[in-house]
Structure formats: C-alpha cells, structure tokens
C-alpha cells in the first residue's frame, strides 16, 4: 500500500520566522506538468512593510559584524545548500527545468555561495583607497553598506539568479527583502529553510512570494528602503522604479548579466556607499638643540 504524502505548506520568511501572509491570500502558479505547484503565499504590501522593519532592525548587527564572520556564514549557506541539492534539483524540475540543467544550476548555486563567501573580507581590501591629498591629512575611502535593500529575483534560473541577487547584497553587510520568482517560487521558499539553518541572523534576508506587479510600487516607494535591486523588469517598470525612488532618493540598481555574467566582486559594490574620511597628520615642530 502506497504511503500518503505529507504536503508542504509554503510560507514567507520574515525576521527569521516563517509566517503566513497577513492577507490570507494565496496564488497557485502552475508547474511543468501543468498542475499547481502549491498554494503559495501572495504577500501583501503589509508583509513587505513588516519585512522592511525586520531588515532594518537586523541591519545594525549585520553591518558591523566582522567581515570574516560574514564570510563564514555565507560559506555555511553553501554547505547547507549542498546537503539539500537533491531537493532543490527536484523543485527546479517541477518548475520546468530539465534534470541535467537543474543539477548544473544547483551546483553553480552552491559554488556561488562559496565564491561570495570569500569576497566578504576581501572586497574592502581590493577597492578601498588611501587618497594622496596634497595637504597634511590622512585621507581614505572605504565602502559601507547602503542599508536595507529591496530586491526582485529574476524569473529565469529561480535558484541561481535568486542567490546571485541576494549574496552580493548581504556579503557587503546590507540586509535584504527579496521577492522570489513569481512563477517559480519553490526555490525561494526552500532557500529560506536553508538560510534559517545557516547561522544567518534573522532579518538579514527576508523572502516574500507573490505578484511582482502588485508589490513593485511599494518596494520602490518605501522611504525606509535604501536601495532597490532587480534585473528583468520591463521598461515601464524601470521607469516606475526610478520615478518612485525619488521620495528618498533610493538607489536603483539594474543588475546586468545576473545569470550569464562572469563571477565578479563588482555586484557587491553596487549596494555600497563610499565614505571618505579625513584626519590631520602632525609633523614634528622642531629639531632640538644645536649648541
């Protein structure tokens, strides 16, 4: 006699918790076989608002955490992902991938975690500068996280592209609220389960599922969000994003080559601010006795 399968309830991931959407709504994207993937939470603007609160409160601790420690946590995400490779591959296939492509995507996703884990304590060293000003001052420019980042994950390659969007943001000390791929939400929900077991403090990454068109306006006009990252918006959506961003001059970041691009530390810099600090350098006033 065949065992009766336990079906999974898919939830949001906010502040390290797995709440259902406050709106009680759901949507049912179709899988590769035409059947619904499940009852997926259709996050509301209030869910987004709550997630921003969680991200803001997590920012202080995450931004000042030792870069070495952030590095270890990103590496831990990779470890957890590796252990769940089969599940991620299954879900990618359910969402329309082929077994070979799914396997490759999961492998690349794990490797991407390892790649960015290594950058956490290196990008600052590579890209900071000591500026040789002409006056008697020590002058240096360093990168600091921009703050709370709202992001929309690309629809293609729902696991790899999701990570490629999240990882550079958190590697640089920001916290993020990301909307998973609308049509392929399973990867983002399962990734949340990985993050929850990876020593990542609650609230650093918050994952929502839902309808892009519905949430986009709130993601770009929320005044406590410092930056917005996406890659596959329509031209009209980009226009909306840039227009609405003026309320707090949110940084609008259009990621290019999220899937096909070469691995690089430059995406980390896109959600960083450059801070330049000046301080006087004393010079000795006298030479001493000459007689």
């Amino acid at each position: 006699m065949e065992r009766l399968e336990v079906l999974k309830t898919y939830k949001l991931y906010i502040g390290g918790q797995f709440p259902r959407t406050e709106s009680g709504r759901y949507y049912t994207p179709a899988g590769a076989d035409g059947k619904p993937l499940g009852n997926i939470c259709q996050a509301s603007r209030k869910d987004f608002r709550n997630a921003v609160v969680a991200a803001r409160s997590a920012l202080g601790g995450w931004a000042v955490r030792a870069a070495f420690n952030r590095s270890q946590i990103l590496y831990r995400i990779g470890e957890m992902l590796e252990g769940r490779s089969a599940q991620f591959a299954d879900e990618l296939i359910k969402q329309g991938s082929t077994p070979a492509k799914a396997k490759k995507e999961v492998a690349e996703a794990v490797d991407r975690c390892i790649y960015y884990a290594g950058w956490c304590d290196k990008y600052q060293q590579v890209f900071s500068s000591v500026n040789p000003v002409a006056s008697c001052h020590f002058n240096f420019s360093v990168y600091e996280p921009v703050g709370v980042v709202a992001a929309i994950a690309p629809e293609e390659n729902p696991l790899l592209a999701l990570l490629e969007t999240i990882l550079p943001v958190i590697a640089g000390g920001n916290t993020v609220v990301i909307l998973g791929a609308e049509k392929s939400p399973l990867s983002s929900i399962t990734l949340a389960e990985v993050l929850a077991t990876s020593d990542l403090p609650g609230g650093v990454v918050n994952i929502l599922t839902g309808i892009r068109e519905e949430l986009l306006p709130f993601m770009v006009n929320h005044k406590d969000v410092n930056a917005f990252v996406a890659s596959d918006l329509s031209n009209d959506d980009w226009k909306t994003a840039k227009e609405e961003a003026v309320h707090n001059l949110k940084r609008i970041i259009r990621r290019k080559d999220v899937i096909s691009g070469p691995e690089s530390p430059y995406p980390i810099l896109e959600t960083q601010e450059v801070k330049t600090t000046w301080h006087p350098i004393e010079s000795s006033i006298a030479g001493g006795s000459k007689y």
Partner: protein
Amino acid sequence: MPDCTLLSPPFNRVQSISRRRFPGKVRLASGQQRGENRTRSGLVPVRIFPLIMKTKSAATARYDISCSPPVDQVGIAERAQRFTTRSIKTGAKREGLLKVLNMIDLTTLEGADTPNKVRQLCYKAEHLHDAIPGLPTTAAVCVYPPFVKVARQALGSASPVKIASVATSFPSGQGHLDHKLEETQRAVGDGADEIDMVISRGKFLAGDYNYVFDEIAQIKEACGKARLKVILETGELGTLDNVRRASDIAIHAGADFIKTSTGKISSAATIPVTLVMLLAIRDYHFQTGKMVGMKPAGGISKAKLALHYLVMVKETVGPEWLTNQWFRFGASSLANDVLMQVAKLEDGLYQAPQYFSKD
C-alpha cells in the same frame, strides 16, 4: 626650598576627569542688552572662577598639568597660514611698522659682546633712524647680566627704553637654582627692568613639571619689581602640546611675559608656536582677567613677517595687546628691515641696507 610633592591626587583627578578647564560663565556686561552696545568681542566675562591651582603659598601654587588642552598641530598651522594672507597696506602698514619698532627688544647676546658694543646698541635703541623724524624708540635692549650696568649708564634713568637681561644660566638653563637666583637678583640690582629667564627644559621633558613651576615661581620672587619673561625654548619642547603645557605652567607660576626662544637654536619663533602661546594667554585672561605678555624671539627679521605677528595678536588675544607693554619682538636685525619699509613709505623708493646703521 619649596615643597616639591605632588598636589593631592583627588583634587587633581576631579579636575582632570571633569575637564572643567574652562569653567567661566559667559554673561553680558551689566547694563548691556543683547544685540546692542557690544564690546569688540560682543561679550565680556564677568564671573571669575578659581584657577586650576591649589594654593599653598603664593610661590608654590602649582598648575595642574592635566588641565592643559590638547593642541592640533595641523589646525594651528592652517590658522597660522591664514594670518599671513592678511594684506597690510598704506596707513595700516605704516602704523603697524611703527608699532613693530616700538615693540622690539634690541638684542645682543654674544660671547664677543663688549661694553662699547652695548653702548652702541643703547644709542641705536633711542635713535633708530634720525633721518626720519618721529620714529619711536625700541621697547628695550636685551643683554647678558654683566652688561646691565653699562646699559644703565648709557640709557640713564629717564629713557623710555627698558633694560632686559637674560639670566638663569642662559641659554641652556643647565645650572644650579641658587646660582640662577643670585644671577637674577644681581641683574635686577644692577638696574635691569626685565629678566628673560629660561625654563629647565630637561626637567620639563623628564616630566618634572613641578620643578619647572617652582623654579619659575622663585625666579619671579627674586625679580622683585622687575618684569619676568619666561623663555620656553619651544624648539626643544618637540610638540605643540608641550608648548601649551609649558606656557600654562609659566603663566600660572607668575610669568609677566612668555617668550618662545633663546635665539640660540635653529628652531626659534614661528607663527604656529606663538599662536599656541597666545591662546594660552587668552584663556588665562578669560579665567582671571589678568593680562600676560608675549615675546616671540629669534628668526623674525623681516618687516612683513612682523606685521603678520601683529595680525595674529590682534585677531587672537585682541588689539589691547598691541603695545610694548604686552607684546615684544626679540630681534637684532628686524629693526633695520622695518626702517627700510618705513623709509619706502616716506619717499616711495626701494631702499638699500647701506643707508641704515648697523650696530
């Protein structure tokens, strides 16, 4: 000999922790309304707070070194630079140059000094350049102690030119205290109006600030009615923080003037060093209402530079310091350069040194 023990620690500690080194309250003078009838600075301090000193006896009241404020050397240099961008022209230039002449301590401090050399110097002090009528005398002549009597004979008792004598094992200050006291008393007895002493830099750098304080206080006592100039020899103090500290010690120990340098080492008076000392004078004035004089010495040989010093005095401690009672230049060759500039203002021609007497 005074008691050289430290001040009782709790008193010190309280002062330094709370850092109430500037406890004066600022109020408008009585009768003044805000926004009208302002004094030059708009405000005058009226409440005088006790100093950061503990009084045992007048001569041994010591300054709490931890209360000297920090000094940022680059900030001082920037401010100093800004004084030099003031452009002093026409009437202000003439007035300033005459002030400079009148602030000079015309100095000869050589191993080769002779009575005749000193007599010539005294004559020059009173007759800077008789071809131009109406010039002032210098403020003083400055000589070694053995020449005080000669100078007094040359100047008489009615001259506006004061006699200053270096003392206290000038220039190194490496001598015994009793010898320094005796040297001081003798110079005053011979007719010196002013004593230019040197501090014990070795003691200062070794951290024995109490020794430095007590020594100054005792020399001051030995001076009697003569005014005491305390030479910090800033070129040996190494940092502007030390210059500030030494200034505070000297001022609180009773200096009538503080002076930068002996002129005997290469790093002598500079605008930044003088600025730090002037700020110490200004803070003391704010706290106590008492004025202390300032004398940069060594390295000031050009009129233009001297005018920049006046700018600094005016903008830091205030124009009330712009007299030879409160500000002096220790210099030997400055006078002639100033005279050449004054002459240029008179006849419009660029001058040459051979038209001005060198004494």
